[in-house]
């Protein structure tokens, strides 16, 4: 696999939340607006990138049996760093993301990439993989956040373009499930069509 492929596979082909169905909790929980989605995405990307680098550096030193606990401690350390940074520099974002920043520790994407990729590959490849997966996650959070913000409050990035209220249900809890369900179905539909057109060519 070329370097570029490692970077781009996480963005579309193996998008963590829309295709691999990992990290559902933040995908549903923080996407009330496009801005929150991007903020959460960047925080997760940061943790993914650093933990992937760190784990691929120490992979030779850690005995196989205590692998998972060690990974969790490494990830938890970076999550604490991000948590404190966000609280210190962007308190408004910390307020709206709340509990979901410390919960990056138990986000299956981070541990999944550590186990499936960083513990087997070199440092540069792991870095690209972490970055790609993080960007893919950010992209899907942005799409879902934007859909919910446009439908729910008739605004994008906080700029209102309609008068009055939007369809309130999309900002509330049920809307998260609906939007994610339909976005996921759309992605699968496109994939299915691509597959069948490839088959026809043969």
């Amino acid at each position, binding site marked *: 696999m070329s370097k570029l492929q490692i970077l781009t596979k996480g963005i579309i082909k193996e998008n963590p939340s829309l295709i691999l169905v990992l990290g559902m*909790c933040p995908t*549903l929980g923080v996407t009330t607006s496009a801005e929150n989605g991007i903020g959460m995405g960047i925080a997760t990307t940061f943790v993914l990138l650093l933990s992937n680098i760190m784990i691929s550096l120490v992979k030779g030193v850690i005995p196989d049996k205590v692998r998972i606990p060690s990974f969790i401690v490494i990830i938890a350390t970076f999550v604490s760093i991000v948590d404190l940074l966000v609280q210190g520099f962007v308190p408004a974002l910390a307020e709206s993301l709340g509990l979901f920043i410390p919960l990056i*520790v138990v986000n299956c994407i981070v541990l999944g990439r550590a186990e499936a990729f960083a513990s087997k590959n070199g440092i540069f490849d792991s870095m690209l993989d972490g970055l790609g997966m993080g960007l893919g996650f950010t992209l899907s959070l942005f799409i879902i956040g934007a859909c919910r913000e446009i439908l729910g409050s008739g605004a994008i990035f906080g700029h209102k373009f309609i008068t009055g209220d939007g369809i309130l249900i999309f900002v509330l809890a049920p809307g998260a499930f609906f939007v994610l369900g339909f976005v996921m179905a759309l992605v699968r539909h496109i994939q299915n069509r691509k597959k069948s057109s490839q088959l026809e060519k043969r």
Partner: protein
Amino acid sequence: MEYILMIIGCILVNNIVFSQFLGICPFLGVSGKTGTAAGMGAAVTFVMALATLVTSTVNKYVLLPLGLKFMQTIVFILIIAALVQMVEIILKKISPALYQALGIYLPLITTNCAVLGVAIQVTQKADFSILDSTIFATATAIGFLLAIVIFAGLREQLELNKVPNAMKGVPIALVTAGILAMAFMGFANLV
């Protein structure tokens, strides 16, 4: 009376799955059959109550007096991971029958964000005693149990219906969960 209100609030009004979006992974992953869903829910209830009891004790008597609040995330996740391992070993020895029933779900719980989420949530409520925290965690976990069992029942019915190709599996499950979340919104003014 206070406790009854808190318990109803945790189970129905602020249901952990439908209004807080925690524990979605097991909620989607282990809800194929009502039986396995009930097993997962029971295991989560057990671990969540125990974990919150331990983490809130550690938080109150170790982390806060020493000014180590920034270590919270690391300490809590280690406690939960160790606790899950310990419960697994003890259960294997004491009650093989229960271990058979819950065993396969236990390792999955370490990465269940609901457990860590509740443990962190109760530390943010300043006036919570350790007893309050444990009751809060137990009630929240019962809310999870309720949600996952209802959802598994719905998914069993869903299997029998014709669904468009692209919607099969997770997407239609998410839409179903959305409708269920709307139903749970009806409890909003209960407490």
